[in-house]
């Protein structure tokens, strides 16, 4: 069902965990749907210095979470915000069709985290 690369990421997820003093947090999905992920980021000079994920979900959900952290880490925010769910799936060598929509949310999670970071910064600038 899954590509070897998906299974490899499922088996050995990269960047699993929580950044305690994160600069941004993104949450997408919903436990009622069976898939939920939380992405925490650490930003310095508009570059994603660290990205970590926590995921409740199936193999695809875990692997896409893991993959998006790899794709994002070290990128600057403008690049990272452009990463799409489709790119994540492609980087994994593809996902089963039924997993393309429901369990492929990791890029959305990353974007949510970046937005959270930007909002926090905007607020800080106002204060």
């Amino acid at each position, binding site marked *: 069902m899954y590509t070897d690369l998906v299974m490899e990421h499922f088996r050995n997820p990269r960047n699993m965990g929580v950044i305690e003093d994160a600069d941004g947090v993104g949450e997408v999905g919903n436990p*009622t749907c*069976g898939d939920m992920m939380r992405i925490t980021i650490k930003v310095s000079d508009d570059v994603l210095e660290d990205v970590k994920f*926590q*995921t409740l979900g*199936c*193999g695809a959900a875990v692997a896409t979470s893991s993959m998006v952290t790899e794709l994002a880490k070290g990128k600057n925010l403008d690049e990272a915000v452009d990463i799409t769910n489709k790119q994540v799936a492609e980087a994994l060598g593809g996902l089963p069709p*039924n997993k393309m929509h429901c*369990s492929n949310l990791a890029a959305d999670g990353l974007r949510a985290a970046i937005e959270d970071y930007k909002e926090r910064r905007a607020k800080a600038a106002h204060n």
Partner: protein
Amino acid sequence: MDNLIYFDHAATTPTDPAVVEAMQRWFTTDFGNPATLYNLGLTANQAMETSRAEIAGLLGAEPDEIYFTSGGTESDNWAIKGVADAHEKKGRHLITSTIEHHAVLDTMEYLEKKGFEVTRVRVDSGGLVDPDDVRKAIRPDTILISIMHANNEVGTIEPISAIGEIAREAGVIFHTDAVQTVGKLPVNVDDLNVDILSLSGHKFYGPKGVGATYLRKRVRVTPLMHGGGQERRRRAGTQNVPGIVGLAKALQLATDRMAEEAVREQAMRDRLWQGLQESIPDIWLNGHPTERLANSLNFRVEGIEGEAMILCLDMNLIGVSSGSACTTGSLEPSHVLLAMGIPAELAHGSLRLTLGRDNTDIDIAYFLDVFPPVVKRLRDMSPVYNK
């Protein structure tokens, strides 16, 4: 895959080597079409009729009440569509439950689109249908009641005999999907008060792609397969003689060891559940504590998701299923668990273990070793479990 520890006997079972052996000659040397008149065909026909009589005997039926099909799905579709088509002049109302297999539920849904009305009686938190609910659902235009004998996800055994009595009193045809019980529980069509019963070979160590329908004499159903005159004109198609011989052999073998195997599997299952409860916090049983198949264990694990557990267990050479129909292209949580009142997020985190002949105490011990760390790892990964 000899080193796999298989806990998914409700999904399918290995075909017993004695069954495979019994099938062989009907493939190659005695391959005749049982509808032909020469010796080769007559021999095949005889083997088929002997199988029919054996199966009938084991179910307490007459041989000419047994019809061979391609499996449980066909038997379920035939029963429901066949009764609906043959009796729609009398009425267009059908009764079923909320926890049937999709072969029943989707067929019912199809009939709804064709203008039939369907009442789905609810189940309690253990998955039990209340016969009284069935009684109350009966209307003058009710033509069929279809309630499964035991549920395939949680193993709950329904009060079929009592429901059958109600159906008989009301003069309504009663079908039961016994795919999960035939070969595991004693099934007698008269004791169960059923008019139509579905069974499937691959659930009791017989071949895939062959099943049977018990159809009580004088119950009218329209064929699902029109064509040749096979099966007394009720189910067309060249009969699968090797499969049929295998079906009978498998049912014979399963019946022979039924009592002993139920005790053995239940003991293992109960030890397993005991062990899991001791080593893992926040897990709960799904299904009925007692009215349940001896080999079935379904439980929910807070904070993690089913497929992830399956994959982790597979990495440890253990085969299990989740409560949800992972394969249907939807990620809907199990309709059975939802019907029992389990919230969606816990339904997603459920696992089904169904034991079988090949399981031993060693498998139980191994599972109890492997599973707690899997749960811990996935809970560590989970954004919603923080205990």
